[in-house]
């Protein structure tokens, strides 16, 4: 491949970006445009495919190949695309409604098949494009246009769902921490297989502040846990808190008070069981004793992906039977002649 020297600007299109001023999507767009030059990929080898929703406008703003498809179906479209073009870098842009409500079925099947696709799940816990109904990730009790008395739906925990579907790369980031988001986007790109990056994204019009406990300076350190492979689970305003495991129960401990970092749970991205436990750190941060919300790579596993296995089957078939001979196929095995 020829050497490619591109900048973030080369990935922008001539289209006006139409998200509401102040939307978290702007930050995500910027970070994606800024990491792509570092991948060394040519623009024509990248494809962005989305479903429907605010986030799904994303492909229009990327100077790559793109498709703004229909509601919930992007996972199926990227599957077909990857099945025939495994060399392309395919990014799927989706939101909490698109991915977890109307597209929930396709989403879990994409994960289990492990097509090599980068999934960016913009989670804002609300339906923005249809102007403010609750979504499958909205907390119970949420008052919205369609739930004036509060939602009685129990919300999805997207990363736990993805673990259950045997996803091979499961991570979380936030729109308001661009540096961390960039790192995670790079990891998402590097992983071979379906990479799921959930991004907490603020909808400043219909659900402003949904993630403020995790994203704002005043509360961020106390409520979030930034995962690093091989490092102990430490958080808190002064890095004064840690998580240790009591059997299978995570316990928050204060460091220095009879506990040192040596006692803590050391993050191991390859440990499926512990990653599962981490996805269950899902408490409402306002509750006393809530576990901190983790960000970073929860789980990463190398597992064969569907498209390569499919190509291998085609190659095996060619090896076993020879490249297809159309005349032989049409003739079949049992013929007779009329003279």
């Amino acid at each position, binding site marked *: 491949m020829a050497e490619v020297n591109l900048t973030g600007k080369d990935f922008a*299109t001539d*289209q006006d970006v139409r998200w509401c001023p102040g939307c978290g999507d702007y930050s995500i767009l910027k970070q994606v445009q800024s990491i792509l030059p570092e991948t060394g990929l*040519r*623009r*024509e*080898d990248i*494809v*962005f*495919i989305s479903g*429907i929703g605010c986030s799904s406008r994303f*492909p*229009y703003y990327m*100077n*790559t*190949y*793109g*498709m*703004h*498809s*229909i509601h919930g*179906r992007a*996972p*199926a*479209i*990227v*599957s*077909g*695309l*990857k*099945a*025939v*073009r495994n*060399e*392309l870098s395919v990014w799927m842009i989706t939101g909490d409604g698109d991915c977890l409500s109307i597209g929930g*079925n*396709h989403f879990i*099947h994409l994960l289990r098949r492990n097509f090599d696709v980068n999934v960016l799940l913009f989670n804002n816990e609300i339906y923005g494009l249809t102007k403010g109904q609750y979504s499958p990730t909205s907390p119970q009790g949420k008052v919205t246009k369609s739930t004036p008395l509060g939602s009685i739906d129990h919300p999805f925990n997207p990363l736990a769902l993805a673990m259950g579907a045997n996803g091979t790369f499961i991570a979380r980031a936030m729109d308001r921490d661009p540096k961390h988001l960039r790192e995670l986007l790079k990891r998402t790109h590097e992983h071979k297989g379906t990479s799921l990056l959930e991004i907490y994204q603020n909808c400043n019009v219909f659900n402003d502040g949904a993630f403020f406990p995790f994203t704002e300076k005043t509360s961020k350190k106390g409520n979030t846990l930034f995962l690093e492979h091989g490092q102990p689970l430490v958080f808190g305003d002064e890095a004064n808190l840690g998580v240790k495991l009591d059997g299978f129960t995570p316990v928050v401990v204060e460091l220095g008070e009879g506990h040192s970092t040596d006692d803590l749970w050391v993050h191991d991205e390859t440990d499926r069981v512990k990653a599962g436990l981490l996805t269950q750190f899902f408490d409402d941060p306002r509750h006393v004793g809530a576990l901190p919300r983790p960000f970073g790579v929860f789980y990463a596993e190398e597992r064969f992906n569907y498209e390569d296995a*499919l190509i291998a*089957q*085609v190659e*095996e*078939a*060619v090896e*076993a*039977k*020879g*490249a*297809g001979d*159309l*005349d032989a*196929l*049409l*003739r*079949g095995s*049992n*013929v*007779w*002649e*009329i*003279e």
Partner: protein
Amino acid sequence: MELADKTTDVGNTKKEVTILFAGDSGDGIQLTGNQFTDTTALYGNDVSTFPNFPAEIRAPQGTLAGVSGFQLHFGSIEIYTPGDECDVLVVMNAAALKANLRQLKTGGTIIANTSGFDKRNLKLAKYPDGEQPLEAPELSKYKLIEIDVTKMTREALVDSGLGTKEKDRSKNMFVLGFIYWMYNRSLDNTIQFLTDKFKSRSDIAEANIKVLKAGFYFGDTSETFTTRYEVKPAKMKKGVYRNIMGNQATALGLVAAGQKSGLEPFYGSYPITPASDILHELSKHKNFGVKTFQAEDEIAAVCSAIGASFGGALGITASSGPGIALKGEAIGLAVMMELPLVVVNVQRGGPSTGLPTKTEQSDLLQALYGRNGEAPMPIVAAKSPSDCFDAVFEATRIAVEHMTPVFFLSDGYIANGSEPWLFPKASSLNTITAPLAKPRDEEDAPFLPYARNEKLVRQWAVPGTTGLQHRIGGLEKEDLTGNVSYNPENHEKMVQLREAKVNKIANFIPAQAIDNGPEQGQLLILGWGSTYGAIKTAVRDLLEEDVEVAHAHLRYLHPFPANLGELLQRYDKVLIPEINNGQLIKVIRDEFLVDAIGFSKVKGLPFMAEEIKNRVKALL
């Protein structure tokens, strides 16, 4: 072969015979039918078949719900249908007789396995206590041949060392051997088949062959049966033939279209009766670069095919009516994005789940109109099992060369039916040319994804091609640029462009021809799809009787061939037989203001030629 040589003295010659094999779905009826079909085709008869099985995989044994049938029609004349009523009805049990007796011609032959008429079987078939249908007075209208097939099969295998259950599995071979004797057919083909099929169990192969021969000898030596028939080879067009089923022909047509277009076929599908066999067949041909994908649902199936088409492959999806309904939104997306996509609908009885294993032509209007918005799509329909090959090849050509999703309509009748096929040479098939966009440099003018050629077709810009980065999707496109546009004038223009593009296809398909009968006159029968055989047979017979009637059969249902309106004007009356409640007739009336006469049958069964003949006679 020695057995047949000894017994070639056959008194009676027949031009055509229809046999219906019927028994429990576990009785090996389909295999028996297929074997007779292969043997009789190899002998040189023309033949047409129609399997008819229950929706349940293994309905309770002996019950009416569990009856499986295989009808085949063969002759020394050209055969276009699996036959109306049958000459010979083979029944393995009481339920099979009860379910199929009305299919038998007066004077026809019943071959009954008497052990299938014991107390238990009679009760399961819900005959009243004490009634023995084989002794019923109404059976005097027929010739009854009673054979205790179960007993004779067991006796033939007394030294085989097999258990009773295994022995009983061979009883269909006894019947087959007996029918081979009746029609003076060689056992060679079936012996070879059994040897290959049970390669790893030679004891089972030997047992089946022994029973097959026992059936044949039983006919030869038993003096009860004196009537045998000779059906001489048919005078068919010269050439090399094979037997083929409709779904198989569809699969081969898709492989061929892939080869002839240089595109890799990608088949996204979710199992559904009666379309699944296309998936099974295609998945065997990976060495042709065919990729099959069993998706999680119908919507994912079509969407994966759209993704593949976007990637520059030949995207194909298939289903039956209920699945097509689910795919509707995504098919509309393909209309909007103007990407090639072949949508196969093997129709079955509806609405809803309807009649999964029965045939119907009731999804024509769904194919024409079953999407939101103004979403025109070409439609191509196959007329017979082997025609599925040509018709789906043609559907693919239109999809690729005109950058549009295309419906290919088949149905349960021709999908599962079979007939001899004068298969083409690969070199005789047309090349399909994809309108691929070429790479561009920075100095070139910007790429316009929705610029069109003289056919109004846009270019296919495949990811990976330098300088063609562009975004498409379901929102309305601005003319030329493909950018999102809500401009009122632009929307109207795009709606008209998409329609004009599809209508223009009429200039790239053959003119409508008259299949048989006068070029103008009193009455034209206008058919489409699987009614071809019945209409063809009826018109042939009517012309022989000097009844003036013509037949035209539509392959292209949207757009219609350019000369169709003029053709319809040449006849005083136009009769449109359909296996639905009248769908094509609505379109013909709408488009041509022709006061066509409808003829509907909606029983989950194909037309009989006799029904068409009677309708014509009533009209003239």
